[in-house]
């Protein structure tokens, strides 16, 4: 098994809630509350979760937009949780890039495609003259199957799919090895989605990229990711290889998610769990329920669930779950629950 490209260890990100004239802290939003996993080179790691799950915050923390409240993130031997490390090693910023969801807002409407693509090139000193920039930008546009003329266009003249291609080109400008894809096709029509995903898969192969693929579209995830992690209120609920997660989901939340997928054929209906009526809605990460944070909505909750937070355990080789229903997840009461996760 090759060395992981990225290893997260107990990453925590809390946001203080400030209010009042002098902005005093009155509470905390536990956006990410102890997440650990490892990413292997060349894989497409899927991250799934609903609103409030913390998946976007986790991605942003990985990218350096937020500094983690606690925990470490190991990338090529560096702990990128430390902002000093990120500042000191420019290669890290070049190696980790992102493609956002909404092509409408991920491109500056007042700047041409060329100006947008030039930013990463100039910031990292990858081009020094206008001619060099022109050449490199033409190359990038070719990689995403856009003609060079597009560099003079403003975003509003482009279709959703074209804008997203430009966003991908921007991510590739620094020749990254790891790309975070945060809902890259959610704002696109389904007939366009396939082409963008095909492009991403092709680029992954050609450029040896590793992807963190975030989406709420489980049908898409089924076909794109090699492994999938399910997040709920800042913690991982389940993590498994894609076929295993979909055919044998263990965590009640995963089953609830899968049962809600709107599918388009009878065949697929048979593949998903029966519809589980969710009780209530996801609570706000500012008010996380005690014990297992899912217990108020869980159809299988029992006596220990409101009291103790489960820990992650492996149930079937690499299939890991964090739920009291499974052996190894319930720490002995009274002891400190040390995460058994590496």
């Amino acid at each position, binding site marked *: 098994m090759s060395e992981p490209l990225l290893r997260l260890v107990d990453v925590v990100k809390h946001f203080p809630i400030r209010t009042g004239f*002098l*902005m005093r802290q009155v509470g905390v939003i536990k956006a990410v509350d102890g997440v650990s996993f490892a990413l292997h080179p060349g894989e497409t790691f899927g991250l799934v979760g609903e609103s409030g799950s913390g998946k976007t915050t986790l991605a*942003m923390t990985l*990218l*350096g*937009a937020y500094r983690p409240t606690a925990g470490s993130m190991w990338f090529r031997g560096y702990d990128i949780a430390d902002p000093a490390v990120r500042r000191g090693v*420019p290669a890290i*910023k070049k190696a980790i*890039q*992102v493609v*956002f*969801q*909404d092509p409408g*807002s*991920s*491109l*500056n*409407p*007042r*700047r*041409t495609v060329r100006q*947008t693509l030039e*930013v*990463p090139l100039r*910031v*990292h000193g990858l081009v020094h003259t206008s001619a060099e920039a022109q050449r490199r930008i033409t190359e990038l546009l070719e990689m995403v199957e*856009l*003609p060079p*003329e*597009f560099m*003079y*266009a*403003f975003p509003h*003249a*482009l*279709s959703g799919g*074209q804008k997203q291609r430009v*966003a991908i080109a*921007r991510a590739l400008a*620094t020749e990254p090895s790891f790309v975070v894809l945060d809902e890259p096709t959610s704002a696109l029509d389904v007939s366009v989605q396939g082409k963008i995903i095909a492009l991403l898969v092709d680029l992954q192969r050609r450029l040896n990229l590793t992807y963190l693929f975030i989406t709420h579209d489980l049908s898409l995830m089924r076909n794109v990711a090699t492994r999938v992690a399910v997040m709920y209120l800042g913690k991982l609920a389940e993590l498994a290889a894609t076929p295993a997660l979909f055919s044998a989901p263990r965590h009640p939340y995963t089953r609830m998610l899968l049962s809600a997928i709107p599918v388009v054929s009878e065949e697929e209906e048979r593949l998903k769990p029966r519809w589980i009526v969710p009780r209530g809605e996801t609570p706000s990460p500012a008010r996380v329920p005690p014990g297992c944070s899912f217990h108020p909505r869980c159809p299988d909750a029992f006596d220990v669930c409101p009291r103790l937070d489960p820990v992650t355990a492996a149930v079937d080789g690499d299939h890991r779950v964090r739920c009291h229903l499974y052996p190894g997840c319930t720490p002995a009461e009274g002891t400190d629950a040390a995460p058994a996760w590496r």
Partner: protein
Amino acid sequence: MSVVAAAPARENLRRTWYAFSRNGGSVFGLGVVVVVVLLTALAPWVTPFPQHARAFTDFEHASLPPGGPHLFGTDTIGRDILTRVVFGYRFSLLLGLVVLSAAVPTGVVLGLLAGYYRGWPETVIMRVTDVFLSIPPLALALAIMAVLEPNLQNAMLAVSVMWWPWYTRLVYGLVSSLRNEGYVQAAQIVGASPAHILLREILPNCLPAILTKMTLDMAFVILIGSSLSFLGLGVQPPDPDLGTMVADGAKYMPDLWWVPVFPGLAILVIVLGFNLLGDGLRDIFGVEV
């Protein structure tokens, strides 16, 4: 693939003009502003009696009603009112220009900093701004003028001092929402400097609102300037100023009605022009100013 225009910037301009010209009022406003600015710039050459704009008396031709060589009539010491109105526009526009040149960059920079850097810079800047904004503009200007010698420069100073907070508030609001836009985050993640992000990513997206506000503000500044002069606190005689002319002429109503009425109408016209133009800009930019 969609058709990408050969010269996108020019295309944008044409599209903007198309949307703008839908609204007759806006085009009218633009016309008024352009005409007034041109007249004012060329005042010494287009007015019939440019020398009347300085210290001048001609009691033989005083208090003439409109007609003949004096389209707007003459005032009580024989000066041609039309000429003085056009030269009066100079002071009004100059006031507007100077005030905005001072207030806008200050306000915008402070707004950018407050909106982008959270924490105490934001708190300090915005609380100071709040204090200024809570005082009615004219009252503040009067208070300042009360301690300074009344003249044009001090009037400009007074108005500038209380004008910048509006821009800080405007830009602060814009930056607060724009900083969450995808392209700003993308620039941050790539490692662009804060200067780049503020000036090249965020500021261009604030420009429509700033320009619209500046246009509408010209109208307001001219009004305030005229009010100050009306009260004797701005431009001093014999320099022609629309507010002063109205004040001086008011006592001769209704007999020598043309003495205050034409300057008053002139104020109305330019203020209306800027307001219509600003409204038009607001409509096409879709800003909330």
